[in-house]
């Protein structure tokens, strides 16, 4: 496949993908380092708070708790014990190459059909293991995390950035979703998490067809009237 000659569009695609991949690598290196060693810097990874009618960014969903700005999330992380993240799987995808309007790009050509390498939003997915509580001996869980990165309008980024000097917050986190996907072996064995019976909590699909009327009827109640007491 490697000898296939690329059309100009494909070539442009490839160059764009190259930037996105480099960004994904530089970003995850810097971010997980900061979560482990330099939590005071976490808030600088997030875009400024912006409240819109249909959504508020940054939208940080971390283990199903939602934070709506960098500083409050940083505060949460600062209260956590030791964490060591090891990325095992990494991938990225360009979401919207025109995320940043051409006019808002610092040092851009102001042409709507250009400068995608600095205007695009990028989705990054990382999976891996995370060591908690104690280095080397703490429980090790698996995690999966998704980030959407958007250009940092405060930075003037060179063309086709390759992040040779590391991550300089060229993109900022707009939305994020973190989940543990597997318990550490020790946690499962002591029965803390091995209990497969949930605490009666069901997901949205399990409640899908529970219409009230049906349940009321099943219990011998009618919606109209007093019902049998």
């Amino acid at each position: 496949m490697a000898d296939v000659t690329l059309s100009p569009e494909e070539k442009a695609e490839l160059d764009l993908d190259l930037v996105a991949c480099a960004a994904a690598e530089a970003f995850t290196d810097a971010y997980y380092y900061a979560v482990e060693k330099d939590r005071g810097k976490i808030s600088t990874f997030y875009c400024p708070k912006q409240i819109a009618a249909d959504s508020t960014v940054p939208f940080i969903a971390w283990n199903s708790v939602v934070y709506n700005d960098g500083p409050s999330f940083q505060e949460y992380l600062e209260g956590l014990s030791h964490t060591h993240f090891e990325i095992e799987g990494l991938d990225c995808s360009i979401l919207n190459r025109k995320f940043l309007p051409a006019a808002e790009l610092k040092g851009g050509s102001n042409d709507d059909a250009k400068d995608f390498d600095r205007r695009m939003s990028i989705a990054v997915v990382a999976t891996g293991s995370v060591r908690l509580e104690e280095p080397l001996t703490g429980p090790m869980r698996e995690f999966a995390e998704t980030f959407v990165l958007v250009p940092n309008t405060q930075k003037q980024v060179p063309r086709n950035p390759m992040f040779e000097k590391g991550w300089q917050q060229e993109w900022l986190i707009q939305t994020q979703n973190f989940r543990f996907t597997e318990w550490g072996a020790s946690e499962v064995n002591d029965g803390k998490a091995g209990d497969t019976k949930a605490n009666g909590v069901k997901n949205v699909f399990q409640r899908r067809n529970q219409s009230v009327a049906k349940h009321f009827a099943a219990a011998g109640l009618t919606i109209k009237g007093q019902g049998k007491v």
Partner: protein
Amino acid sequence: MASHRRVGGIRKHQRRDRDGDLVMGTAPRVSPATRHPPRSQQSASHGSNYTELRITGWTDEKEIPRLIQFLERHSSRRSPNPSKGGVPPIMVKRSKVVGNVLTISVRPDDVIAFSKINGFSFASAHGNQKLNIAGTGIRSRSPNHTTVSAAKPQTSETIDLFKAFLERRYDANLKLLNLSSLATDEEVAKSGMFETESRQSKFFPVLMTICDRQMKNAEAKRDAIHSVTLSNNGLPNLGVVKELAITLPEIKNLDLSSNKFTSTKDLSAWKHKFRGLEHLILTDNPLETSQPGWEQDIIKWFPRLRLLNGVQVRTEAQIARLDMPKQTPPPCQNGLWLDGDKIAENFLVEFFQGFDNDRNALIQKYYDSTSTFTMNVNAKARGGVVQHNRTPWDAYLPQSRNLKFITGRRSRFFRKQRGPDQIQTAWAQIPPTRHAGLDTNKYSMDCQPQPGLPDPSGQYSGVTGLMVTVHGEYEEHRTARGANEIVQRAFDRTFMLGPGGLSGVRVVSDMLCLRAAGGHAAWIPQGPTEVPVPIAAPAATLTPEQEAMVVHVCTATNLKREVAIQCLQAGNWNLEAAAQLFTAQKDTLPPDAFN
């Protein structure tokens, strides 16, 4: 008598070490004195740039050649310009004897070598003789070497001086040790303790040692001294005063103003020291202008620093958090599902059925020419449970775009699928799958708004869609390498759903991560089960009729008892009103309101 013998013993030892060969008489070299015949007399007229050194302590003039040989040998070993292998350099250039003083001329560079052998013992025929070398550049041997008896009162005098100084500089009310402007202190100047540079460098460590002795233990120190000021001492770095961090590690306030620190590097000796420091003053130091952003380093180094130059850098709440026990992230809590219009819900139901049964139809419905699909295999999952299903990933690997392993730029690019045709080809490579029903506990699903997705109509630069992340497992019918088995695979899949396409919903991006299956225990919610709203009425106050209604509502709606009571109270204990309330609010109730 006894002391004499002891001293003699030491000298003997020295002699054996340093000039054993002298006794053996093995000196092969021509003595410098013969190499330079009595030129000494004419030396003065040359007006050379040699340095003259005066050597005393010897007695017999006949032994001068041996003495010079002795000096020559010991100094050349300590020369700053050692010879490389061959003949050692000639150290004693000229010599002359006047009375009992031997004067030698040496190169100024070599003075240091002679300084080092000052006080050595020369083995003369009349016993060991201690040589004394004097001249410019020769450090005198410390006086206590010769005047042991006189030293004691002097030392205690010095200690008293330091004690008095500490007393004078300590303010018991403020618990402040004021060490500012040390150089201009009158008493210190009078004592001469600050006269030379070497004395200055010793002053502070001695002061700290004495301060240490004055107090019984760490607790006493902590109680007695809260603050230290070192302002106005012209300090270019912490070299001279760094002992403060050892003697008084628990001070709360420190004033370093009006010194000559030019960068935070000059302060790095106290990095991560003074763990309890709350207030630091660094005003009037060059670093304020020469290193913009210096505050960042300082704030990082002192975790409990509240005030820096009088400006608050940490709140009390932040400090309080430091003392709180660090927590481990709690286990899985309830799913996050912000999907008011059930877009993601309907999509997922259809997607997993379609992926198991008719992938092409799914692509036609939800994927368009700009949709992307990527897949990555994480074959090395280290965390998690012990027994993973380690079935090989053969059928998947040619497509895996795990950026941790696939590093070629073209390989990465060709593993990214764009548009229905490419995605169809890619999906055809994935073995047949069977996903469990979504209404089981085998998934963890989150759905949250995702602004800024591309608008297919081109009208806006970004539209808001949904980010859906699903973690779960599926069964795979594995036929690779002649196998015919059902294996379990775990996956994390992220969909970005935007408006557009035939069905009104299109997949902007679909990213699939695959892992070895290790069970689904992690996404069974373990979160707190109490309802956040306070319970209005305790059960005891219910009438029998009300009790029966509560039971009915509980069984009918699957609501928790407490929530059911609330619902009925809100409906004024009218079942119909309560039912209407429930219908109106059931979507906004937290998931843990249900049994």
